[in-house]
């Protein structure tokens, strides 16, 4: 466990006040109180740099990409493809050709489940997922299993909210075709031992898809060091706009895979009977892409890089430790998930005697935004033996004293409910 005793409520590895000045929405007043935004695992707020990049594109450069020979189209293409290169550098991809823009993480995962899965998974094969997955890294595999007659296997979650690697070992076999798991749980905050999971999968010849939707925004990733075959993440959780996500894949695998969606932009030659496919990454980007959104994501990546992912992670860790400490001290709180040193900035909890929805409504009355419900992870919520939880999740712009506002509002809710 990290020691929380030394955390002061003012000092931080980040200049949070300066960062906050970049996020116009954080100035909002909600129900008469200054907004305390603690639902970052669902989506993040956007800095002016991202908003401006999108605005600038529409005001100055809007044209379709990869088509026109005129100036505007060249500018739009350059900006969109420039964003792809920024993302490639951010995750340390060998080449921009390995970076496929999708609509979100969900579409990236479906792309692999359909295109790779359709060609490589058959009856009697096995797919391993975990009990901690967001529905978006679970349902596509369930559908693949149903289509192909493959079997789904599950890595269970231990009582301390971690993946049970002993059971994982027993699930792996030469029949395992792919292991799909999250780098960080959106409910428990658990940072999973990804390298270990990947190595063991590769040892039996299985492929690996890492759902990095929570990992990339809060810790960053080096895809070459990580060693997965596919990595999916989503722009809107990392200061970017909605409508843009990323699939990174090993180039050789992407080359071999059949396309996912068919249409314009993804083809080279089209004849009545057959077509040939465009080069990577465009082979997987059918139709007019999310141009402004891609450019916005490029600006988000620039912003995160300038702040520094190590600092962001350290800051969130400090806030999370402090939040765990204060919630423990409050009493009547059930906390879910691993110790502070194994988790990112997510705290799922319940208050005895108050349904999480009532709690979230009451916190909202004090301007505090937290999530309540099943967090798109019903198998995990079932495993916890509850019907729902409340969840607070932090990001680079959260102040440590916002934890105090949040916990004080919880305390007030407990008074109202008499618990």
């Amino acid at each position: 466990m990290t020691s929380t005793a030394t955390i002061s409520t003012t000092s931080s590895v980040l200049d949070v006040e300066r960062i906050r000045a970049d996020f116009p929405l954080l100035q909002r007043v909600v129900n008469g109180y200054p907004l305390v935004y603690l639902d970052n695992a669902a989506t993040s707020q956007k800095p002016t740099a991202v908003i401006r990049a999108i605005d600038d594109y529409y005001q100055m450069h809007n044209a379709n990409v990869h088509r026109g020979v005129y100036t505007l189209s060249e500018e739009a293409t350059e900006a969109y493809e420039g964003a792809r290169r920024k993302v490639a550098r951010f995750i340390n991809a060998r080449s921009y050709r390995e970076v496929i823009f999708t609509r979100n993480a969900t579409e990236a995962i479906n792309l692999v489940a359909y295109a790779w899965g359709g060609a490589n998974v058959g009856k009697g094969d096995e797919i391993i997922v975990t009990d901690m997955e967001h529905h978006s890294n679970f349902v596509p595999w369930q559908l693949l299993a149903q289509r192909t007659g493959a079997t789904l296997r599950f890595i269970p979650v231990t009582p301390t909210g971690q993946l049970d690697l002993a059971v994982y070992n027993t699930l792996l076999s030469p029949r395992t075709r792919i292991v799909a798991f999250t780098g960080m749980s959106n409910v428990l905050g658990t940072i999973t031992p990804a390298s270990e999971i990947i190595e063991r999968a590769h040892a039996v010849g299985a492929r690996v898809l890492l759902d990095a939707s929570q990992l990339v925004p809060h810790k960053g990733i080096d895809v070459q060091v990580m060693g997965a075959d596919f990595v999916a993440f989503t722009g809107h959780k990392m200061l970017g706009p909605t409508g843009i996500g990323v699939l990174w894949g090993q180039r050789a695998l992407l080359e071999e895979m059949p396309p996912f969606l068919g249409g314009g932009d993804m083809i080279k030659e089209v004849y009545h009977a057959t077509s040939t496919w465009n080069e990577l990454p465009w082979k997987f980007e059918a139709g007019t892409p999310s141009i402004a959104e891609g450019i916005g994501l490029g600006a988000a990546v620039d912003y995160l890089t300038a702040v520094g992912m190590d600092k962001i992670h350290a800051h969130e860790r400090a806030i999370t430790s402090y939040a765990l400490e204060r919630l423990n001290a409050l009493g009547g709180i059930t906390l879910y998930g691993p110790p502070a040193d194994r988790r990112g900035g997510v705290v799922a909890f319940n208050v005895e005697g108050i349904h999480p929805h009532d709690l979230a409504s009451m916190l909202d009355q004090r301007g505090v935004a937290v999530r309540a419900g099943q967090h798109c992870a019903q198998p995990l919520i079932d495993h916890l033996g509850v019907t729902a939880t409340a969840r607070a999740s932090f990001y680079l712009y959260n102040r440590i004293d916002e934890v105090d506002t949040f916990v004080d509002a919880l305390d007030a809710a407990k008074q109202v409910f008499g618990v």
Partner: protein
Amino acid sequence: MDAMYREHILDHSQNPRNYGTLDEPVTIRREEYNPLCGDRLTVEMRVEGDTVTAVRFHGHGCAISQAAMSMLSEAMVGKTVDEVKQLSKEDLLDMLGIPISPVRLKCALLSLKAVKAGVYGVPEWAEDEDE
């Protein structure tokens, strides 16, 4: 702290009326589930002649859904099945007597959904979404 959590709401949610299971004979039994929040509600009714003579409910949910079901159960006893069919969203909101934000409306209406689907004997009862 919150206009929604008035004393009568807390009273009904913390000491729900007609909570439990009904002894046989049970004429109508109906379960409803709200996948968004995981709330689950089972309502049981005994109908003698054409009058609802007893109601019990169980399950779990937020204060709003529990209070709504508790109040609704009290209002149903002694009514004919036809009268229960006439109960509307407005009637239920009047009983609750608190401002319900759009996102919490589903919580409040879970009980009415269960009751209506039960008395109409249909797989799913939907309040007109446009209302």
